């Protein structure tokens, strides 16, 4: 398969018709909140694009992000994304190893200078010269700096690469840092989540390929299409929150009736992600639908928020009895809780900013 051919030419040789592009683009437009009419332009863009060189760097991570992407729903529809990219380097997925693997990375960097995309999963250890994680004798910091030098853009997948994640949690023994702290002269897109939603990864890459530019990002470098709203905004249990109807424990009447999980620790109000709409496992469910609160795993410092089962409001000085009393006033509490959630969200964001300085 020649890289000079367009994606349309390449896939046509394998019997993939332009209808497949149109169908995939309709799906992408839907998940990326583009108007349905954008599907045709997206399909034409993809068909005319060249295969995109991608170098995937795995640092302090658990491989969950790769698992998420490779187990994306499909197989045929989501698998199309793998036809659109040339995954030139990926520790877990590539066949070669050792010096041959590193040679493949350097070859791709040379052949696709200024055009390749670097995907990073995992945070980058910086303490003591970065010795806590090395690949082929090279520290993660050095490999990152070398690889991004001539990249078109960098995509940080997962909360570890985006915000530090688990390695960044107190006391952060390795001096773990997110990519945005180390790469300041290239466009960086953050797709946080532990793991990130596969459609968010595939959709962002497809957007880059078909339009040749970055999707619209928020102040934390996240694509607004997937991170523009909180879980709480699109949660099907939201009407219970607005009426002040809360489960007090995981086995009480409220839990059985599907009431809001705010008081048992749901972090939905501060969690910017698309789980409530895209869901998981082929759209089957998401944590709240399965009866458990959201951890806000795509948020900065989610490991250091004071406990997964503590209400958001508790950690900013509100006692349990106050919560209970406030809940009794129903909808009025919804507004109060939302205010507290916003305060909490700002506290978390400020904490991250302070730690990064």
């Amino acid at each position, binding site marked *: 398969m020649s890289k000079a051919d367009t994606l349309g030419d390449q896939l046509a040789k394998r019997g993939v*018709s332009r209808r497949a592009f149109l169908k995939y683009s309709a799906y992408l437009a839907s998940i990326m909140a583009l108007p349905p009419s954008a599907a045709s332009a997206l399909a034409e863009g993809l068909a005319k694009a060249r295969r995109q060189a991608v170098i995937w760097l795995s640092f302090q991570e658990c491989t969950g992000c790769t698992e998420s992407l490779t187990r994306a729903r499909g197989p045929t529809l989501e698998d199309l994304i793998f036809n659109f990219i040339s995954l030139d380097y990926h520790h877990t997925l590539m066949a070669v190893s050792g010096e041959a693997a590193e040679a493949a990375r350097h070859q791709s960097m040379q052949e696709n200078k200024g055009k390749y995309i670097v995907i990073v999963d995992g945070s980058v250890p910086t303490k003591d010269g970065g010795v806590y994680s090395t690949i082929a004798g090279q520290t993660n910091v050095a490999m990152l700096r070398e690889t991004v030098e001539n990249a078109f853009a960098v995509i940080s997948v997962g909360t570890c690469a985006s915000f530090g994640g688990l390695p960044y949690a107190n006391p952060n023994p390795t001096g773990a840092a997110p990519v945005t702290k180390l790469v300041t002269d290239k466009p960086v897109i953050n797709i946080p989540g532990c793991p990130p939603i596969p459609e968010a990864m595939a959709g962002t890459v497809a957007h880059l390929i078909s339009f040749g530019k970055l999707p619209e990002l928020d102040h934390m470098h996240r694509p607004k299409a997937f991170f523009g709203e909180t879980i709480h905004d699109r949660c099907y249990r939201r009407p219970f929150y607005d009426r002040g109807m809360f489960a007090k424990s995981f086995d009480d009447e409220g839990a059985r009736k599907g009431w809001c999980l705010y008081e048992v620790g749901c972090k939905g109000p501060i969690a910017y992600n698309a789980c409530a709409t895209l869901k998981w496992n*082929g759209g089957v469910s998401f944590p709240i639908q399965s009866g458990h609160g959201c951890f806000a795993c795509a948020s900065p410092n989610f490991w250091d928020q004071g406990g997964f089962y503590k209400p958001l409001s508790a950690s900013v000085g509100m006692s349990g009895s106050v919560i209970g009393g406030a809940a009794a006033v129903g909808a009025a509490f919804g507004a109060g809780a939302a205010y507290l959630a916003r305060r909490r969200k700002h506290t978390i964001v400020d904490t991250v900013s302070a730690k990064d300085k």
Partner: protein
Amino acid sequence: MSTPPHGAIPPHPAAYRTGMADAVLREIAGLLDRLIGTGEDGAIDLRSLPMTDADREELKSRLGGGEVRATLDVAGPSTVEETAISGVWWIRHEGADGCIANEQIAVTRIPPILITHPDDLSLGAARLKDLIGADETPPKQETAYEQG
């Protein structure tokens, strides 16, 4: 603090009707007027709307079934159906796993996915020529005698 009981999945309010079907019908009417007036196609992405299953059923029932129904086998099954309202199509794309990947109302004379793309036309013509060329190759006489 109690822990989540195993297997306790709370109810999802999928059976409730929210009135969203009425709103979508009005939007369709606006798109149809635009198609008639300017020739511009329109579409509504049903999966991006906070519709329940009951809302979708209501909408489908009120739009009714039309004269055309096409099934496609493209990276998983798809169905394209014209509703009882001419020019209003219900399109449903599924992945190979049977999960719905996209569901939309298209307001158009013909949905683009049913039209053969010019690039596919050229490929089809090339394949046909190969086919004709293969048919015109004379059979090997020796082989025929040996078998007979």
